[in-house]
């Protein structure tokens, strides 16, 4: 069984073949799916744990603090302790709330990131599904998440929650537009929606460098719009604890609250992963022109490491935003979208089309 940290496709194919040979094709497929599902669930759990810890540490650094230091060395087990605490908390519910929808909402919120994460290419060949509609599918499933937020806000029977849900509805629906358009800018350049093809097309150089000005504008718009779509950073109007206490998840406690929390962090990871894949070449190593020595040295670093380095850089950027800026007001946020981001985006796509038509990119 061939195994290389540089290319996983042989490894995955071998496992697949082995499963099908040992069992019948149908059962082999099902077992394969189960393995993938378990891997992803484990990965998401790990992701939630580590991202919460990283966020707390990074936030502490921004604020000249130490952050969690008590549980484990440097507080590394703090999130585990928090999860244990959340599991044992009493699940509270308000009077007259719609119990069915109240309990359903956290799961709907979780569906979207779990579906989207399956399309992310972690390394060459390390991708669960590779649809030819790639990016479109990610955008499509992430639009389901908003339903969960709306349901959570409405079924809590709390006016603050309702306001929060209303805000997040308006926010997510309008910012989806900008996310799609900014991603389309790069699709124009790469000529495909399929994520593996987009990554492959950046073998010569990442799109953010090769697409120069329009690509950089697209990246900025993407970062801003996707921050807004994930209810984070300066766009956290849906929870806005100083205005509407905690917005749509005011009434949630215990493990159901943890679900919302987890969804937020997985969403953040997906944003960073999509950004890294589209703009920074996914798992592609950094290559500069024809400097053979440098390129070969970069090739030595495994693609998985490259991918996670890029993702962490973008996550750090998102955290930097969150811990620096004040929150926008809901109408200002909509103004930003419709008056600034959207027109810029459309102009940017035109510019990019011109660049592609004239072959002006590198």
């Amino acid at each position, binding site marked *: 069984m061939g195994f290389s940290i540089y290319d996983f496709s042989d490894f995955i194919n071998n496992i697949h073949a082995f499963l099908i040979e040992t069992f019948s094709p149908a059962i082999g497929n099902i077992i394969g799916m189960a393995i993938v599902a378990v891997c992803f669930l484990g990965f998401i759990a790990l992701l939630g744990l580590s991202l919460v810890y990283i966020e707390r540490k990074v936030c502490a650094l921004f604020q000249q603090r130490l952050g969690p230091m008590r549980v484990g060395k440097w507080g590394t087990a703090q999130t585990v302790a928090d999860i244990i605490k959340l599991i044992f908390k009493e699940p509270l519910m308000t009077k007259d709330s719609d119990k069915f929808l109240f309990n359903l909402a956290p799961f709907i919120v979780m569906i979207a990131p779990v579906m989207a994460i399956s399309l992310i290419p972690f390394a060459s060949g390390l991708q669960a599904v590779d649809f030819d509609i790639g990016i479109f599918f990610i955008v499509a499933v992430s639009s389901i998440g908003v339903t969960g937020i709306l349901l959570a806000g409405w079924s809590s029977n709390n006016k603050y929650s309702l306001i929060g849900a209303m805000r997040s509805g308006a926010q997510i629906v309008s910012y989806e537009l900008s996310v799609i358009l900014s991603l389309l800018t790069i699709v124009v350049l790469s000529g495909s929606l399929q994520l593996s093809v987009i990554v492959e097309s950046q073998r010569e150089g990442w799109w953010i460098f090769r697409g120069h000005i329009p690509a950089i504008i697209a990246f900025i718009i993407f970062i801003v719009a996707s921050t807004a779509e994930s209810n984070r950073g300066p766009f956290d109007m849906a929870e*806005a604890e100083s205005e509407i206490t905690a917005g749509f998840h005011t009434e949630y406690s215990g493990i159901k609250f943890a679900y919302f929390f987890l969804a937020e962090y997985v969403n953040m990871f997906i944003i960073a992963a999509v950004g890294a894949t589209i703009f920074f070449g996914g798992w592609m190593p950094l290559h500069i022109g024809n400097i053979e020595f440098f390129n070969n040295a970069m090739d030595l670093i495994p693609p998985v490491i490259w991918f996670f380095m890029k993702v962490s850089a973008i996550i750090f950027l998102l955290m930097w935003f969150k811990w*620096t800026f004040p929150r926008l007001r809901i109408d200002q946020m909509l103004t930003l979208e419709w008056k600034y981001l959207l027109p810029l985006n459309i102009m940017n796509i035109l510019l990019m089309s011109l660049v592609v038509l004239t072959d002006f990119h590198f």
Partner: protein
Amino acid sequence: MEEVAQNIETQEYFINMGPQHPSTHGVLRLMLTLDGEIIKKVQPHLGYIHRSIEKMCEKDSYQQVVHLTDRMDYLGCHINNEAVCLTVEKGLELEVPDRVKVIRTIISELTRLSSHQLWWGVMGMDLGAITTFLYGFRDREMITDIFEETCGARLTMNYNVPGGLMFDIHPNFQNRTKQFLEHFKKKLPEYDKLLTGNVIFTERTKGIGYLSKEDAISYGVTGPSARASGFSCDVRKKNPYSAYDRVDFKEILFTEGDCFARYQARIAEMWESMKIIEQLIDNIPEGEYKAKTKAVIKLPPGEYYQRVETPRGELGVYIISDNKKNPYRVKFRSPGFSNLSALDKMARGFKIADLVAIMSTLDLVIPDIDR
């Protein structure tokens, strides 16, 4: 179409902001009448932290009254103490030594600085920038250390006694204060970089919560909140007490009357406070730290009033004496109470998010309102 628009009934609804709410900074309850997110009416409900300080004063001796005022506006407690002491000294017709006056002024300005630093941090936090909260506290910590060393407590200092101070300043006081000034002069521009110039912050505050000069006067708004509307009301200038008549400082006036003007007024006041401290810190006159007073103070029968400028505005202390060792009646005209009364006027027509900004620029301290 217009008919349809008229026939559609929209319902206004009530929402309780507080008594427990992250941005009321205490147990203030605001009953909001909302149309969507737009505020139609704000009704403050008070009394959740009422401890009847004024009534308690009536059974206390004049020395004991002082420490109760720590608990009113806990961020400007030295100034509250000073106000009571000044009133009692006025009743006794007692001239306090120069040294006391200067020290009181320096510590008052340090109190004002620390209060404004906390306000700045909290204002940032109310608008969603949590990092500013920590930065504000970081710089305030140096001042509380100075207080702890000289007065013995960090928050409820109780450093004043009628006739002077409880004890002399600590030998380190001048050095530490100078160190702090040096440090803070570097940090205050950072405040500007983080919030004042920030496009999101200016959008959130410019044109929000307008209060005209006339309204400011008629609602009795005082302090930086009123001076941002162009109402010149600085007691330190109008009616100098302690050592304010011998220092050179500007009264900060803005005319815009919106949240941003109130914000700028406080930032500018921090610079002025530093200027005042700089002028006095090297010129503390030698002398006694306390004038001679009797162990049991009895004010001659009559009514006494003294006003001072706290970080939030004008604090008036009104004492009626009937020649006993405890006052017959004490009344505090607290700035927070009057400032709060203008909230409804300022917030109407704005959104919930703006209400939060307006409340933080009013710089409310709830125990100061309820007493």
